[in-house]
């Protein structure tokens, strides 16, 4: 069933507006479409990414006057054209991989995303991004709420968290999400080998199948164990990915390779969570577009490019969408340590074979007398959607679920 524009507007937008949550919107369309083969990969840049050095307004004199040390020279940026306000923009020079995707029309860059009245606390901000509700940074996450809408019983691998801890976005009322940082180590360990080890695993599986009637805590742990054991063989397939890419040296790239393997082997996960850190660049961010921040950009750009290339080469790009976000951006002016402190507005990205690429939103004026660069872009529909998930949801919804984006 194809979701018509009318249905999309009626159900999708109404849900987002009222519930402040993408999941009901995502799940409604996903279920209507019946497209379990499509996947969403969520990449979180931990620490608060410096959006102004990721997507550079390189013709704005204030950018250079307020960042005399850390600004990326205009001659180095990777030009991506001008936004709707006519501001020329360029990617950080280490994001060459992303430029390739942008030039293919499959990378959307969404400027000035965030929410109003941020406390600029990492914990609060990351939790708010997790709940997608600035009025509450506790409770379930937007991806978790999506998982809760899936028909029961939910596949134990419906979502795949590549980090050791479950992020709030994946917290669910009823659905557990396995933490699988590495598919190669996600195995059933035994002190024995061969057939004895297999017999041991069988015994563990039977033990975990015990319903433990009247002992709810035991039943819960058993169900978690059962889910883990049942998914071992499927996860193992993710290690047998196609040809290895040449760019595989960082933990971030390796995590994305695992995800690519899982997608190529069709293990059945609909949502993947990947994160990389080091973006809290208070000091020694790097001068003239180099240094530590350049390394972060290289990790990000190379990792995403390798992932996108793997998926595309397998003919799966149209079924896969990646979104990239951070908990907040950073201040316009550099500080006294050649770094930047916590700001507000960030830049989000969406990439995938069916993402309608381009520049979304407008760059801020960086004049000293204004704080516009730290203000948030008003979403076109001008409602009070606190997090611009809607803007990122628009290309994502289109790519993931075939929804008409002309709304």
């Amino acid at each position: 069933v194809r979701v018509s524009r009318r249905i999309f507007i009626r159900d999708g937008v109404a849900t987002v507006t009222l519930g402040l949550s993408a999941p009901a919107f995502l799940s409604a369309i996903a279920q209507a479409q019946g497209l379990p083969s499509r996947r969403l990969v969520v990449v979180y840049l931990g620490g608060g990414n410096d959006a102004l050095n990721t997507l550079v307004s390189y013709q704005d004199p204030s950018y250079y006057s307020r960042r005399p040390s850390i600004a990326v020279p205009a001659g180095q940026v990777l030009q991506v054209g001008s936004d709707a306000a006519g501001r020329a923009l360029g990617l950080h020079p280490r994001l060459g991989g992303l430029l390739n995707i942008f030039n293919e029309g499959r990378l959307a860059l969404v400027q000035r995303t965030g929410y109003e009245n941020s406390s600029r606390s990492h914990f609060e901000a990351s939790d708010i991004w997790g709940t997608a509700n600035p009025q509450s940074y506790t409770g379930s996450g937007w991806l978790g709420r999506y998982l809760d809408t899936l028909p029961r019983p939910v596949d134990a691998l419906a979502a795949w968290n590549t980090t050791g801890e479950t992020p709030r976005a994946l917290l669910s009322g009823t659905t557990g999400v396995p933490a699988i940082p590495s598919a190669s180590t996600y195995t059933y360990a035994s002190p024995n080998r061969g057939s004895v080890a297999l017999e041991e695993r069988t015994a563990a599986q039977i033990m975990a199948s015990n319903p433990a009637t009247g002992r709810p805590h035991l039943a819960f742990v058993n169900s978690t164990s059962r889910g883990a054991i049942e998914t071992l063989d499927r996860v193992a397939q993710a290690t047998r990915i196609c040809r290895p890419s040449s760019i595989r040296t960082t933990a971030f790239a390796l995590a994305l390779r695992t995800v690519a393997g899982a997608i190529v082997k069709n293990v059945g996960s609909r949502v993947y969570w990947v994160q990389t850190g080091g973006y809290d660049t208070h000091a020694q961010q790097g001068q003239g577009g180099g240094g530590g921040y350049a390394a972060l950009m290289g990790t990000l750009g190379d990792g995403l490019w390798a992932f996108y290339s793997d998926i595309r080469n397998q003919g799966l790009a149209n079924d896969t969408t990646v979104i990239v976000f951070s908990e907040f951006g950073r201040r316009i002016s550099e500080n006294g340590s050649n770094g930047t402190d916590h700001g507000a507005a960030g830049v989000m990205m969406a990439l995938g074979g069916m993402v309608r690429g381009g520049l979304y939103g407008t760059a801020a004026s960086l004049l000293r007398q204004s704080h516009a660069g730290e203000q948030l872009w008003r979403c076109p529909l001008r409602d009070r959607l606190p997090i611009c998930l809607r803007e990122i949801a628009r290309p994502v919804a289109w790519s993931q679920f075939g929804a008409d984006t002309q709304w």
Partner: protein
Amino acid sequence: MLARTNFAATLAASQKENLGAEFESEAQTPQALFQAMRNRVTAAPFDSVPQQALMSYLQAGSGSWNAAQVTTRAAGLARLLVGSAEYQLV
């Protein structure tokens, strides 16, 4: 969850020979090994389903029940007991 239970495997593997030596005298039969190990390792109550699974594991070995079998199965049993939900909730 898997990491937690796999830690039990690491412990059992590192003490495999010691476990075999420790239980050899008491483990005249699979049932005896099961009772001896349970008495030493945990007071957690096990329902009939996990109990039967553990006994089946101990009895699955081919050939006679000897010292080598005790060493192998004792390590596996320790892993299963310590990695069980029952053990972790006591």
